[in-house]
């Protein structure tokens, strides 16, 4: 069997005014970037509720990109500043959940920066590829032993020995 290389799923929340237009620019300029990114257009990077991020990871995303206008350029004056404040806390929380901080990235991409968008996606995709799959949905679907009738696999071998 041919071993397939791991292709990460990356969800990208792009603000419609700068980053989404920047991604469009990358497209119209025929710049190449990996197809791993699934783009969700939002009105502002400040609209990206941490709930969306958690949900994306739970439903199978391996990486997550939030991109918005450069600080000071926000269409809504300070929406992206809210993102800037929230982001470090979100990363801290995800790390506590066991999700590596390299799996989430905040980038400022303006409407003219098609090239930057393509570079960011390339770099991010290869970084997530190195980390391997997150498999949160697999973790979620692990049933408790009583439901499946299978004995718990959580015990490490040494703990089992210690028991006996």
């Amino acid at each position: 069997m041919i071993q397939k290389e791991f292709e990460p799923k990356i969800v990208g929340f792009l603000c419609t005014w700068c980053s989404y237009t920047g991604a469009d620019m990358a497209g119209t300029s025929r710049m190449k970037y990996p197809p791993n990114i699934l783009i969700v257009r939002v009105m502002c990077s400040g609209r990206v509720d941490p709930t969306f991020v958690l949900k994306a990871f739970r439903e199978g995303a391996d990486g997550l990109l939030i991109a918005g206008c450069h600080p000071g350029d926000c269409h809504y004056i300070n929406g992206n500043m809210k993102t800037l404040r929230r982001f470090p806390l979100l990363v801290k929380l995800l790390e506590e959940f066991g999700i590596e901080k390299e799996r989430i990235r905040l980038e400022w991409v303006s409407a003219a920066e098609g090239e930057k968008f393509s570079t960011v996606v390339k770099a991010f995709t290869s970084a997530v590829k190195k980390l391997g799959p997150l498999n949160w949905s697999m973790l979620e679907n692990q049933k408790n032993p009583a439901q499946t009738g299978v004995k718990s696999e959580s015990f490490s071998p040494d703990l089992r020995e210690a028991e006996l």
Partner: protein
Amino acid sequence: MTKPKLALNWAASCGGCEIAVLEIKEKILDVANLFDIVFWPCVMDFKYADLEKFKSKEIDLCLFNGAIRTSEHEHLARLLRDKSKVMVAYGACACEGGIPGLANQFNKESIFQRVYIDTPSTLNPDKKFPQENYDMPEGKIQIPTFYDTVKSLKQTVQVEYFIPGCPPLEKTTWKALEAVIKGGLPPVGSYLGAGDKTVCEECPRKKDEKKIKGFYRSHLKLPEPEKCLLEQGIICAGPATRSGCEGTCLKANLPCWGCYGPAQGVVDVGAKFMSALASVIDSDDEKEIGKILEGIVDPIGTFYRFGLAGSILRRKKISQEKKG
């Protein structure tokens, strides 16, 4: 006419919810008059075998408190679900996993290691752990399976109503029981006895524009009276938490801990709480923001104090590599 049948049960909980039921004081006599209490292991000697003899849906109301931690809890949740017409998750643990849900930051292995080996007061040189099956001369002894992940009641069986709180306040319990007694229950899936806004709506403190230069846990700062605690930098879960408690803790100069669970329409209480907290930081400088956020030392414990099991991610991912 026969009286409607009432069952009460506890699973992974501290017992506070059982006391909270008695908090309705003399009205408990009304409950005893109106209902035929058929199962309440905390206060009377009922056997599981007696419960199994009931027909399906023969019990009218079941108040279930506590999270699902072991196979025994799960068994009883399923059994009571089958026997009861209306299943109510009573208290924060049944609703969202509560404090026991915080154990989802660990797994069975690490919890057993801590409890039976590492704690300073434990002497266990032979590294003995409880075993599910054990042969005694008198016969076989079985204890329930301890699960890796704590679940809320809703994640285990279908639940009709929720009564939030740690524990539910007297008025919340009574409002909920009244709704059951007098009829006119809201649509299935509703919260009984609680509000549908946030704690801030009921909080008596004066609120102004929020601008925070530093976060403090409640023991680190003496709060000024009457001013919103969040404006003073004291971490308060009010903006993300369901109303219904009438700001009890806030009246006592303590911040909200979030025991009434996520406010109406909120999917993940921690995400909303975190979002509300971080958005009001008074700085646009990355370094300064980082410094201000150092005041939040335990994100999961702060944002998901009562709701980790019921949250989107539910538990911590424990690296598989260590296990070998």
